[in-house]
């Protein structure tokens, strides 16, 4: 159980500023998805939360306590990496138990119970003796299992599905959604560039662009009331239709966006307008 608060977070690599002042809050027990195009800083933001990168300026709070200088292992987080980063020389069991063996105060029996419980949850118990290279599709499950075993307050996912084939991607996505339901007091932060993943998994979505937050809201809020043309174009598939120029001027706007499902095709009088388009995006 942990809420996370970001206050004016900035991150620069040398002269390049990647995160340009982010203020946000992740509520306790929430599934928050960071989404945005590549290079928007979403992965960097996740790494700042994990503590793998230092914050250049600003404050990061876990449950109201500043954690800027706290090491990753002291923050009560667990992370699932894009490449899963399983230890290649350890069996699945050892991979999952590694974090616990490093912490003091867990005896062998307790570790075994916790690993097996996590393995049962993800249905990977039959793989416990295998090495990572002998796993074909279940590497993602093992990586998630390694994270669960540590019993974290915050779960961080860095594009965990991007290396999977389409069928497995859907299955693992369902698995993650189930996991969130069964662990309802664990805060989860999930980074992806795939807006379908974002829409299906998230309690709330945070859309990032060029190191700043464009909009935060529930999937439906983002879909129905996007704050900007960028969010409107990014969320939803097929993409929202944008009309600009003279036609838009008649609505008193620079650009008008219409979702495909709100357009009705009429056999005659095709150019005539029936009622107002639902969403307008006034720009500038």
């Amino acid at each position, binding site marked *: 159980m942990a809420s996370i608060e970001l206050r004016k977070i900035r991150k620069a690599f040398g002269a390049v500023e990647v995160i340009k002042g982010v203020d946000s809050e992740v509520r306790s027990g929430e599934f928050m998805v960071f989404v945005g195009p590549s290079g928007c800083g979403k992965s960097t933001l996740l790494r700042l939360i*994990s503590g*793998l990168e230092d914050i250049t300026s600003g404050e990061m709070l876990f449950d109201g306590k500043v954690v800027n200088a706290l*090491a*990753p*292992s002291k923050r009560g*987080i*667990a*992370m699932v*990496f*894009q*490449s*899963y*980063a*399983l*230890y*290649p*020389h350890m069996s699945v069991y050892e991979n999952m138990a*590694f*974090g616990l063996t*490093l*912490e003091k105060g867990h005896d062998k029996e307790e570790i075994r119970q916790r690993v097996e419980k996590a393995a049962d949850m993800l249905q990977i118990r039959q793989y416990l003796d295998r*090495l*990572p*290279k002998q796993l074909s599709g279940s*590497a993602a499950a093992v990586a998630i299992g*390694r994270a669960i075993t*540590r019993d974290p307050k915050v779960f961080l996912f860095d594009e965990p599905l991007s*290396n999977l084939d389409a069928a497995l991607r859907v299955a693992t996505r369902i698995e993650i959604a189930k996991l969130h339901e069964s662990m309802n007091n664990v805060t989860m932060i999930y980074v992806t560039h795939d807006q379908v993943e974002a829409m299906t998994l998230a309690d709330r979505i945070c859309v990032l662009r060029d190191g700043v937050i464009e909009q935060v809201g529930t999937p439906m809020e983002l879909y129905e009331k996007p704050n900007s043309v960028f969010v409107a174009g990014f969320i939803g598939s097929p993409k929202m239709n944008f009309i600009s120029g003279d036609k838009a001027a008649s609505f008193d706007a620079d650009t008008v966006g219409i979702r495909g499902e709100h357009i009705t095709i009429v056999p005659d009088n095709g150019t005539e307008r029936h009622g107002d388009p639902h969403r307008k995006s006034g720009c500038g």
Partner: protein
Amino acid sequence: MVGTLNLWGLTKTVLFYALVVFIVVVSVFPFYYAILTSFKSGTDLFRITYWPTSFSWNNYRRCSIPAVSLRNLLNSVFVASVTVLLALFLAVTASFALSRVRFRGRSLLLMTIPAVSMFPQIVVLAGLFEVIRFLGIYNTPRALIFSYTIFTLPFTVWVLTTFMRDLPVEIEEAAIVDGASPRVIITRVFLPLMWPALVTTGLLAFIGAWNEFLFALTFTSSNNTRTVPVAIALLSGGSQYETPWGLIMAASVIVTVPLVIPVLIFQRKIVSGLTAGGVKS
């Protein structure tokens, strides 16, 4: 047409295997000749033959008595093993810093390291001799371990640094999230993954220390502290005009065997280590 084509193909095959045979003969002949000589005795030694004409264990029997003693062999094994262990320990820790810790002047340092081994041994010999005298380790195995480690480290550090740099950063980060300290990361995550590199560099360092001659000759003065190469070179015959070639060759064969065995043992390890991999990227 087909006939000429086949002829050309045949010629190519013949030429290829002729080249292979030539290379093998050229590279193996010195060793073959050494073994051949070690089985000769008396004036046979100075008759150039390419096939064994006479066969006697005489040289081996003589050399196992006092000439190259067990003591020299143990010296060599001790010096080479300790050098390897010391060099690998220092190199693993140094390469972790050089490949994974960001600090000012890192690339400059990395470029300077091989420069150390650019100097010919003879250039630093006098200076090194002074250092060893100052440390009071002249004529002890420690003098050899000290100087060999200095000359082995640049190579070892470089190879391990490039190898460690290629290990996925995410594995290290996963270990950090799991709560591993740098020491735990090195010993429990990196070292098991680095076996092939450790074995290869360790083996090369071992061979280098085993065969080294100049330092071993300079920094030791009594037969009790000499290593095998020096002991062999200092083997003398009945008079100062006689070089006991048969004996030298027999001693060399004896010395080479302990080197071949670890190579054969670790060869499998190297191959299995290289194919281990298993990191998805």
